């Protein structure tokens, strides 16, 4: 059984129209489908029908996220394993969500809703699959140029508990971990692809969303992105941009019109894909200032505590 990627993030937003405008014009996604209640968007570098779903709600936050399984039989295996781990599992028939087939829905120990699926409608890269233009699509020019959905950062009251589920049930591996004085995980980066995190977990309320992250084309693209976001008065982090010590990436954080935090980053290192064979990088919590904000060498606490 293998999770091949975090396929999409479904976000609750308090103003659907302004959210769509943000994810299209600022982030660089494009709409693939609208239903009565939800808008489905794709990033130029993902081939599946959607990588972001937006739904109007009275609150902001993460409705659910999708994980794409490697094999059709993985759903049955996951059903057994998740039930054994104490999760309540339900099956949703193909057609329950546009662009994807049969779904196995369950809740993580942290109360996050996950929809697992194998079959998806492949719509190719936005540039097309025949003789594509490497510069990208015109529709994304003028945005910050998100290439693809990279990871979701979840909040959990018990990080060890959620990590254990992702590692033991879903076969994620751990690339970096911040260790609390009591030896428990304080922050962790988990991966199922060959990049260093597909799911990050930070302390916070159950079902909470810290951020949804997109990869930029290169580090220079992050500089241009910050300037565009400031130019358009999109609320960015106080620092504008920084580098994380953890992961080593160059990054900027900003907010969608409902307050959901987005990230555009560049420079994650590759992970070898040999599950359990490479021990994680460990950070002491006393080094978390440098680990979180490498240039500033201090941890901006509202960055940790204000989540949707």
């Amino acid at each position, binding site marked *: 059984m293998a999770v091949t990627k975090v396929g999409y993030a479904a976000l609750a937003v*308090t103003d659907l129209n302004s959210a769509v405008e943000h994810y299209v014009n600022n982030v660089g996604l494009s709409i693939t489908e609208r239903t009565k209640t939800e808008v489905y968007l794709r990033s130029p570098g993902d081939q599946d029908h959607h990588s972001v779903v937006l739904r109007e709600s009275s609150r*902001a936050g993460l409705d659910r996220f999708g994980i794409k399984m490697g094999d059709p039989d993985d759903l049955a295996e996951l059903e057994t394993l998740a039930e054994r781990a104490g999760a309540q599992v339900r099956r949703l028939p193909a057609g329950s969500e546009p662009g994807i087939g049969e779904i196995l829905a369950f809740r993580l120990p942290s109360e996050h809703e996950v929809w697992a699926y194998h079959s998806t409608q492949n719509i190719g890269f936005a540039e097309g699959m025949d003789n594509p233009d490497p510069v990208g699509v015109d529709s994304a020019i003028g945005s910050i140029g998100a290439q693809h959905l990279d990871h979701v950062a979840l909040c959990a009251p018990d990080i060890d508990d959620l990590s254990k589920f992702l590692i033991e049930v879903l076969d994620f591996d751990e690339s970096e971990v911040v260790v609390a004085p009591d030896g428990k995980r304080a922050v962790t980066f988990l991966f199922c692809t060959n990049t260093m995190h597909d799911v990050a977990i930070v302390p916070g309320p159950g079902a909470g969303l810290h951020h949804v992250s997109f990869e930029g084309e290169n580090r220079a693209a992050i500089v241009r992105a910050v300037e565009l976001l400031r130019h358009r008065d999109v609320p960015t982090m106080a620092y504008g941009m920084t580098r994380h010590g953890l992961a080593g990436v160059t990054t900027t954080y900003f*907010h969608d019109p*409902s*307050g959901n935090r987005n990230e555009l980053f560049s420079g994650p290192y590759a992970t070898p894909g040999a599950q359990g064979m490479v021990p994680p990088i460990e950070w002491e919590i006393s080094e978390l200032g440098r680990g979180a904000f490498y240039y500033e060498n201090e941890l901006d606490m509202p960055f940790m505590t204000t989540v949707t």
Partner: protein
Amino acid sequence: MQQFACGADTTIDEAARSAGLNVRVVCRRGGCGACQAVLLSGRVEYREPVSVTKLHLAGDDHSRCELLCRAIPVSDVTVRPILAWTKHNPHPWSDLIRKKG
């Protein structure tokens, strides 16, 4: 206690900034809760959406609070912010530099 005037159609955050106070604001869209404050007196209204889950404090009692980035006073109000505000250190040039609302 800090006192300052707040114009019509102005959020408490904007008014505080004009008065030289930095409200803790992160998303500025009523979604993250960084600017939560308990309303001790008066009334506020919202003209743009905010996340209803952030109109209640974390913790056991879930008591009502307001989001200063989008709350517009409709009377004199007294608020107690959850995260501390900071005061600008005025430099002689401060008043010459355009403040952005």
